[in-house]
């Protein structure tokens, strides 16, 4: 690309490319809008929250989820691009897991949707593999010194999702109520799930 091409405004670049590809019959504008709607409305962290809530409520499901994440997640109907092989990491009082992709921004789309800005930002990608405790503290998560930190860099097609600890005071809550507590940030490992 020449310098002028490099500096094309992205909104204009997308219009130009879409117009050329549509004219050539290579894309259908309706398909583009379907992709957008899918990730705006149907595929997002609400899916992962259901997985976490089921794991908290059902010990057998939890065991299946930790043994074969992809299959257990598919039981709830969640699969698709960027979810070929999903490994679920269990956070405990002794071990805190956190996920990154330093080389691009790989992320488990079927359960968490598309990655948020902070996950794609160079500050997170560069720092969490070098000073994870400092990064987590910046996000407001202070870990005790005796908690072991494990950072997972998603460098192959394996995708990682964190199973956060179930907060106290949630005994007797329904799966639906539990799912409403679970945040995207907790399923990446940069936050804990707060008590209700």
């Amino acid at each position, binding site marked *: *690309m020449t310098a002028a*091409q*490099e*500096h*094309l405004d*992205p909104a*204009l*670049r997308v219009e*130009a*490319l*879409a117009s*050329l*590809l549509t004219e*050539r019959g*290579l*894309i259908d504008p309706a*398909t*583009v*809008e379907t*992709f*957008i709607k899918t*990730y*705006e409305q149907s595929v997002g962290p609400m899916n992962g929250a259901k997985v976490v809530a089921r794991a908290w409520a059902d010990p057998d499901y939890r065991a299946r989820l930790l043994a074969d994440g992809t299959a257990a997640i598919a039981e709830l109907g969640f699969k698709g691009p960027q979810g*070929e*092989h999903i*490994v679920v990491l269990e956070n405990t009082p002794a071990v805190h897991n956190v996920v990154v992709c330093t*080389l*691009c*921004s790989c992320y488990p789309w079927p359960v968490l949707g*598309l990655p*948020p*800005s*902070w996950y794609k*930002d*160079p*500050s*997170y*990608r*560069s*720092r969490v*593999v*070098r*000073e*994870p*405790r*400092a990064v987590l503290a*910046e*996000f*407001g998560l202070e870990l005790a010194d005796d908690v*072991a*930190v*494990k*950072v997972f*860099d998603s*460098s*192959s*097609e*394996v995708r990682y999702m964190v199973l956060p600890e179930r907060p106290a005071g949630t005994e007797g809550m329904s799966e639906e109520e539990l799912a409403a507590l679970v945040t*995207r*940030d907790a399923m990446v490992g940069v936050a804990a799930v707060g008590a209700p």
Partner: protein
Amino acid sequence: MDGIHDMGGMQGFGHTRALDAGPPFAAHWEGQAFALGLLAIRASGANLHAFRHAIERVPAARYLTGYYARWLMGAQNLLRDSGVVSDEEVTARAARLSGQDAAEPARPELRKPDMPSGGPGNLRSLDSPPAFAVGDAVRTRDLHPSGHTRLPRYVRRRAGTVAAIQPAQVFPDSAAHFRGEDPQHVYSVEFASAELWGAGCEPFTLSIDLFEPYLEPAT
């Protein structure tokens, strides 16, 4: 390639951004760019690995202008390389869409790659057994390819331990350049933080998924 995308451990990017629950696309063009990137893979006869490499090839200063901006420039790289849409056509069309007069350049000649696919997705089964077992001590090789690789700089020439064997997968270093799928065993390798960042760094464990050709036995 040792590009700007290989960010693990770099310093100078500042404070993390705020956790927020904003929509997936901050503007409509970002959603269009997202869809177009995925559709460009098919339209150009490429694959996911070639697309990642196309994004890595975005000039460093432009790479840093934002995720969907670089995603879109990556899509354009794929389309240009395959002769589907030339850069000149994009420039001319952008000018016309902005109300300027611009002649439409001639269409480029198609030169799509034709790498055979072993099926959908990237997981493959291999007849050969994995070279390493869980618990094995391994060292990452001193590799510096100018093309695509999933061996980041910050774990090269480092000693770690195989923690898990993952499903075998299409080898990105080969597929990104349409040299064939060349599937490989993949290992989750754990490194102690001091092996990566020296004495005095935070204590933690780093786990990363590495393809067999990146590894050798640690001696």
